[in-house]
């Protein structure tokens, strides 16, 4: 029944076309005729309440050139750049499918909103520099006529990373690279650190690196909503629904060694509507997998990873949800206005939150302590055992604090090398990835969206070369690793 309903729904294209050709007669007459036809159809169809000719605007369109799975910050950024870089206005149709418009589990809204250029890979530094520039000009990029300007609430206070003696040489090397790439980072000795931030206990600190420009934190919601507003004004359709199936065509070919290779092409995406069994097939040319922590599942839907282990076909997209906690506490004597986002040698971090001596912080658990990602419950013991002790040691005033609240969110965690996955899949040739950024996806989103749009529209990276982030590395076993992951 439902299937039939949909098929009837599909017929709407025919209806509008067929009727359209008869146009041109007097409008009044036309209206009368339409009413008649409608009545006729109503009487023929079983059940009276249901009318196929009524509003189907909640359904996605039947065709779209590009379907983006996931309406988080990465998906929307890809949509934005596709529309921004298209040759002619309206040249490509873009559909964003997001299953939860409240974004209750999405990483974007649950993140800390930090941006830094202190990475060890040139790609990550460049991505973040581009994003900082984007955020600075956000009201140019995301301006909507008559819409109020966005208030990003950017706190340009920098990241302060601390290194022990063991990490000092790596830090020095990283900072050299960061400065070469154009980031404004300086090194500080423990002595300088004590002068600038007297509230830090520099015991065990050999070196610190401190971001002077373009680093800090901002309101992730503002970026998300700003992108949503903008892409909608550019003609992108955002529809609420879940992508449950990909229908593909197969192409068998032989490679140079005479071995058979099966290339897949997705030509239809099934979008299941929320709270119903109804689904809409959407014909498309390109699919973007920007489903964040769930992108591994979405890739599996397209058959990625279903093959004998050790082959390209059997190589999974190694992105999975990993639960991370954020705690908020109050400390009346805590660091003042100048406090940067501090990352301790232990990996625990904190930043100021507003003006009332409130602070946010946390720590990534070790591989053995990974909590079960089944739900978003917060483990309060984790704060007492893993976060508080190192922070109180580093910032003695934190000995006395009061935890006020806490939340958990999912990292879109790349288990292979904790870095992003960008670009097409080698076998499912029209599925592009924009995912796996494991804790720095928010800040990279503006730049990654552009890189993916360039790939889709022009076939190659133009602004920033992200060849190190393509899927091939999982099969080849070549890691693209960072030497300080927060």
């Amino acid at each position, binding site marked *: 029944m439902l299937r039939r309903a949909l098929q009837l729904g599909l017929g709407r294209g025919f209806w509008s076309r067929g009727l359209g050709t008869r146009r041109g007669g007097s*409008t009044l007459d036309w*209206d009368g005729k339409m009413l008649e036809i409608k009545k006729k159809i109503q009487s023929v169809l079983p059940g009276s309440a249901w009318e196929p*000719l009524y509003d189907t605007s909640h359904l996605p369109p039947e065709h779209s050139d590009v379907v983006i799975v996931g309406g988080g910050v990465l998906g929307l950024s890809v949509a934005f750049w596709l529309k921004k870089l298209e040759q002619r206005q309206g040249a490509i149709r873009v559909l964003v499918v997001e299953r939860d418009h409240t974004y209750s589990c999405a990483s974007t809204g649950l993140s800390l909103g930090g941006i830094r250029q202190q990475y060890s890979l040139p790609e990550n530094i460049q991505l973040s520099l581009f994003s900082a520039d984007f955020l*600075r000009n956000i009201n140019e990029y995301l301006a909507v006529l008559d819409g109020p300007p966005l208030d990003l609430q*950017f706190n340009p206070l920098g990241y302060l990373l601390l290194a022990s003696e063991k990490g000092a040489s790596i830090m020095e090397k990283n900072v050299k690279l960061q400065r070469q790439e154009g980031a404004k980072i300086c090194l500080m000795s423990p002595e300088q650190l004590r002068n600038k931030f007297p509230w830090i206990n520099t015991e065990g600190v050999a070196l610190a690196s401190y971001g002077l*420009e373009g680093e800090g934190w901002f309101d992730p919601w503002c970026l998300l909503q700003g992108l949503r507003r903008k892409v909608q004004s550019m003609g992108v359709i955002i529809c609420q629904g879940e992508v449950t199936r990909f229908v593909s065509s197969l192409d068998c070919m032989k490679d140079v060694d005479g071995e058979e290779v099966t290339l897949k092409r997705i030509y239809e995406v099934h979008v299941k509507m929320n709270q119903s069994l109804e689904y809409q097939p959407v014909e498309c040319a390109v699919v973007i997998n920007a489903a964040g922590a769930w992108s591994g599942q979405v890739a599996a839907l397209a058959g990625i990873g279903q093959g004998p282990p050790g082959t390209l076909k059997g190589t999974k997209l190694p992105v999975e949800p990993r639960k991370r906690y954020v705690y*908020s506490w109050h400390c009346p004597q805590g660091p*003042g206005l100048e406090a940067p986002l501090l990352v301790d040698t232990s990996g625990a971090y904190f930043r100021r939150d507003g003006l009332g001596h409130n602070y946010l912080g946390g720590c990534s658990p070790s591989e053995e302590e990974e909590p079960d990602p089944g739900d978003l419950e917060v483990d309060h013991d984790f704060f007492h055992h893993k976060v508080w002790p190192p922070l109180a040691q580093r910032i003695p005033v934190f000995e006395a604090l009061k935890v006020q609240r806490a939340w958990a969110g999912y990292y879109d965690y790349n288990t292979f090398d904790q870095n992003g996955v960008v670009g097409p899949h080698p076998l499912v040739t029209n599925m592009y990835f924009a995912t796996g950024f494991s804790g720095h996806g928010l800040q990279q989103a503006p730049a990654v969206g552009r890189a993916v749009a360039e790939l889709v529209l022009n076939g190659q990276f133009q602004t920033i070369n992200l060849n190190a982030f393509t899927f091939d590395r999982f099969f080849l076993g070549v890691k693209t690793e960072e030497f300080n992951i927060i």
Partner: protein
Amino acid sequence: MAAPRAPLHLVTPVWSGGTWGIRGLSSAVAPEGNKKRTLLQLLCGYFSGVRVLREYQFRKQLQKVQKKNRSFTYIQDRYGPDIAGAYFILKLGGSVKFQGNEWMGPKDHGHSLDVLKLQAVPVEAVDASGCAINYQGLDNLLALKELRSLSLQRCPHVDDWCLSRLYLMANSLQELSVAGCPQVSERGLACLHHLQNLHRLDISDLPAVTNPSLTQILVEEMLPNCEVMGADWTHSLNPQPEDESQDIASPSAPSPSSRSSAG
């Protein structure tokens, strides 16, 4: 009906392929909406024409500000950063003071020869009140190594990002005013902690600062050697109890990220 619509099509190239092209499919389904649709099409065609125009206007305005803020690389290479900086400020309509000289205002801009005579003299004070200086334009000032006093009062394009770059003047800057800048908030003021030589800082009348009195206290704590002229100091001379309680209560109001945690 068709005839009057035709010219509208001409002005609105986006109409056919734009938003309507897509939405059109689904809205075409409701047949009784037919008459409404033509009317809507008409309006939409009309409006998107206006929209294109206004978007163009918006871009033009931005470009105008950007053009004003370009660096004078030629002058900088030929005559040094101080002449280039002074020339930039005078052109924007501000005033500059070279060491041991009188203030020069925008009306002196014509006498560029006067400026050129001061080639070896550093600029020690800049008053850019009300000028259209922005993040880019600030480059011209950051190169002034002996700038002691800077006024950015009521500059519409000066924002927190601009303040985050003033650390480059930390060695020389002693007086700074950002009073009346509509885009400056406590987040940008927090970056001024780099300016440890600052004696005087004017942060009065900043509409984007949510808690002016509390912010002033925190800035004073951050810059202990600096006289901070804050929001409405007359007002804080006779403190009102409600006012104070509000200041203490609001910091605990949910921050952006706490909003997200609730979701």
